[in-house]
């Protein structure tokens, strides 16, 4: 016995779903159902009216795929979907996988539908219609390959809610009036009035094109020729192409042109307003200005910006770290990253007032190496520290602190010129290259890096003690 199902034209997904549920509940095999709707010479038996005993559950993934396939124009789509349902129920094949022949076919059909919908969203061109109400009216003609007017129209309803519009296609027409979307039979191409904006659009299309880089295949693969007849701008393409080579040739022959008279004066005037780095800064502000443009070593090319010190220009105590980290580099201020937070916490606990100190680094640019999505800190080498000592020297000279705390080995080296290990030196006061006193301590990021909790605690206590001692010295 064979069954016939007529889903009408073009056939709706919900109707197929109801019919398929009936058929599978009676375990009717796919080869016994004709989904084409052709009654033929012998009238086929309709499906049983009542649900049979066999209940089938399918995944959301299948329903989504099936809905999408149902919009495809291929006449065999409903038969293939029932075949897939049958296989899912029987557990044979993998009709949801692209690796399976049926699965691949369904996926391709769904893909063709979504591509057609996407092209509708892209290539519908509205023209304005006369309107006697408060809402503006627009209309368009479009020729899709598949039955996609309904799924394709919600996009327009969301996007163009404040105007009335109509999209006519050969099979179906979507109409949106007063925020209500409705569907009607299609028909022949309507006559749409001329729209002045189309001329401006053509002007834009012709001028945004760069004749020096013609790539026709790229254009044709994304904007297939079958759509061209409804795209006003494509009429210009032959002329644009014909002209392209000649335009490039003219550019080449013209070669360099003489600069416009008077132009040099304008850009020169602007350049005169750009900040200049004083060779020998005479104040802390001038030193900062100059440092912002520092190119003494190669670090400036990779880093974002110079991170100058911050705090009180008359500070009696100065804290010097190693170099700005990731956060400091982005924000342009010292000690704002995780290590800076630890330092500020310790300062708060020991009663060091931040506004009475000068916080800075031995090296003013962030040195790092990119790893994955992160920028990993790298220690500055001695050459980089040596180059940057110029700026540290200026800070010391203008601020003239009574005492400087060197946080970590790089700062200790920058300030004293001594690169011996820190363990023996920590907590002691050395004479710096600038002639003043330098108290050696740990760098907060070094403390954070210690694996052992006890060691970390101890180092933190030592840093606290050192800062207390330093503050006592200058108080």
């Amino acid at each position, binding site marked *: 016995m064979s069954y016939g199902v007529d889903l009408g034209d073009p056939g709706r997904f919900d109707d197929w779903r109801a019919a398929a549920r009936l058929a599978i509940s009676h375990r009717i095999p796919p080869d016994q159902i004709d989904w084409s709707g052709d009654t033929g010479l012998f009238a086929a038996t309709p499906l049983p009216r009542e649900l049979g005993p066999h209940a089938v559950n399918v995944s959301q993934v299948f329903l989504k795929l099936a809905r999408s396939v149902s919009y495809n124009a291929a006449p065999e789509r409903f038969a293939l979907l029932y075949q897939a349902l049958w296989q899912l129920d029987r557990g044979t094949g993998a009709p949801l996988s692209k690796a399976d022949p049926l699965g691949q076919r369904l996926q391709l059909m769904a893909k063709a539908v979504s591509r057609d919908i996407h092209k509708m969203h892209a290539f519908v061109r509205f023209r304005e219609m006369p309107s006697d109400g408060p809402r503006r009216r627009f209309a368009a003609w479009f020729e899709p390959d598949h039955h996609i007017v309904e799924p394709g129209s919600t996009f327009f309803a969301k996007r163009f809610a404040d105007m009335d519009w109509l999209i006519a296609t050969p099979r179906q027409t979507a109409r949106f009036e007063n925020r209500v979307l409705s569907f009607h039979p299609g028909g022949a191409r309507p006559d749409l009035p001329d729209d002045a904006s189309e001329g401006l659009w053509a002007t834009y299309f012709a*001028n945004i094109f760069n004749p*020096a880089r013609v*790539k026709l295949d790229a254009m044709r693969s994304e904007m297939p020729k079958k759509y061209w007849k409804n795209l006003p701008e494509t009429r210009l393409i032959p002329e*644009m192409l014909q002209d392209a080579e000649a335009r490039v040739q003219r550019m080449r022959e013209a070669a360099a042109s003489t600069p416009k008279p008077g132009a*040099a004066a304008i850009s020169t005037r602007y350049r005169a307003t750009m900040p200049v780095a004083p060779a020998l800064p005479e104040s802390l502000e001038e030193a900062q200005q100059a440092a912002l443009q520092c190119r003494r070593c190669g670090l400036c*090319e990779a880093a974002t910006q110079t991170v100058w010190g911050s705090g009180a220009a008359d500070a009696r105590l100065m804290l010097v770290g190693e170099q700005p980290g990731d956060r400091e580099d982005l924000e342009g201020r010292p000690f704002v990253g995780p290590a800076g937070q630890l330092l500020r916490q310790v300062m708060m606990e020991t009663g060091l007032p931040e506004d009475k100190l000068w916080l800075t680094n031995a090296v003013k640019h962030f040195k790092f190496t990119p790893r994955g999505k992160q920028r990993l800190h790298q220690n500055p080498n001695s050459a980089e520290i040596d180059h940057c000592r110029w700026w540290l020297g200026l800070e010391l000279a203008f601020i003239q602190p009574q005492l400087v705390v060197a946080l970590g080995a790089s700062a200790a080296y920058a300030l004293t010129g001594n690169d011996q290990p820190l363990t023996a030196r920590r907590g002691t006061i050395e004479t710096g290259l600038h002639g003043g006193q330098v108290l050696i301590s740990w760098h907060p990021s070094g403390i954070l890096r210690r694996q052992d909790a006890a060691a970390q605690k101890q180092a933190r206590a030592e840093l606290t003690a050192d800062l207390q001692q330093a503050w006592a010295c200058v108080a």
Partner: protein
Amino acid sequence: MAKTLQDKLAILSDAAKYDASCASSGGEKRDSRKDGLGSSGGAGICHAYTPDGRCISLLKILMTNFCIFDCAYCINRVSSNVERARFSVEEVVSLTLEFYRRNYIEGLFLSSGIIKSPDQTMADMVRIAKTLRVDHGFKGYIHLKTIPDAAPELIREAGLYADRLSINIELPQDDSVRKFAPEKRPETIRGAMAQVRVEQEATKERSHTGKRPPKFAPAGQSTQMIIGADGTNDATILQSSTRLYTGYKLRRVYYSAFSPIPDASAALPLIQPPLLREHRLYQADWLLRFYGFDANEITTGMQGGNLDLEIDPKLAWALQHRGLFPLDVNRASRDLLLRVPGFGVKSVDRIIAARRNRALRYEDLTRLGASMKKARPFITAPGWTPGGLTDSANLRAQFAPPPEQLLLI
């Protein structure tokens, strides 16, 4: 004679075409069902293509092509004799809205020459974005090109109205920027990118009352680098890009093959734009972002620090690391499968999903979207083993375009 709107549009779109970016994807989900006009937030839509193969997604125009800067590579530099024009705020707003209503575009990409001062120019651009958003309830996409050296407050305001901000790095090395764009400063360009990143991150943190701050450039930031105008090699370019991606979380670095401009400056060569090189750089850029490669891996073994123009960078890498291959497609990890030439991210994910059910055969791989012509020498699967192919001496020759036959004259 006063210029018509059409004249201005011709001049100011012609002036904008050297900016490659046209993305309109990502960002905030919005639509007009409650009020206003427009929607955004899904995949971007390309509404048309010009014969240069580039898509038109946005109305890409300059507010004005008057400029006080003298960047050698730019058609709008002060010393160029190009015809000048300037849009009013209303003209840009009306063009955007009318094009949008006819479904020509996804939104506006606004850039500008610098008039009077960077701050003045940026303020005018922000005013256009604000008018569209606030006065007209425009919910489409807005991309603002940030003017270098504009004040941080203006960049902050721009981020409130724009979906995407971009600041062009212009050239891959600081020295080239200083040489060819003497009014631009690489350090302030990077500073502005850092600001955009920091502002974006700040909007993700709730305040103590639990309120979220307003969105800031929800579609992120991008930049553009001109290729072939200076002598920088590809290795340096890719390192530069890596720093931009890691430092400022850019969505994209656009590479723009330097293309001859009418009214060219004597400082730069009038060359055929290096389109193939641009293409290889994009491929390498994809390897950096989606395939787990790092810049050094791609650039080691390159001739003169440049990518192989004849074969794609992944194939070039695989040919240099044949010891890792062939891989068993049913067992290899995702990381390694991503390194097989001819396997894209999507096909690798499909392979991983499909092989959970059953062992994949050679024929299955084609259906899963892999390009087997390229992948063949690098994999094994039931029904296929490459034998000596992986190590054969002429493997590269199978992929490279045939050598050109020289003709006697």
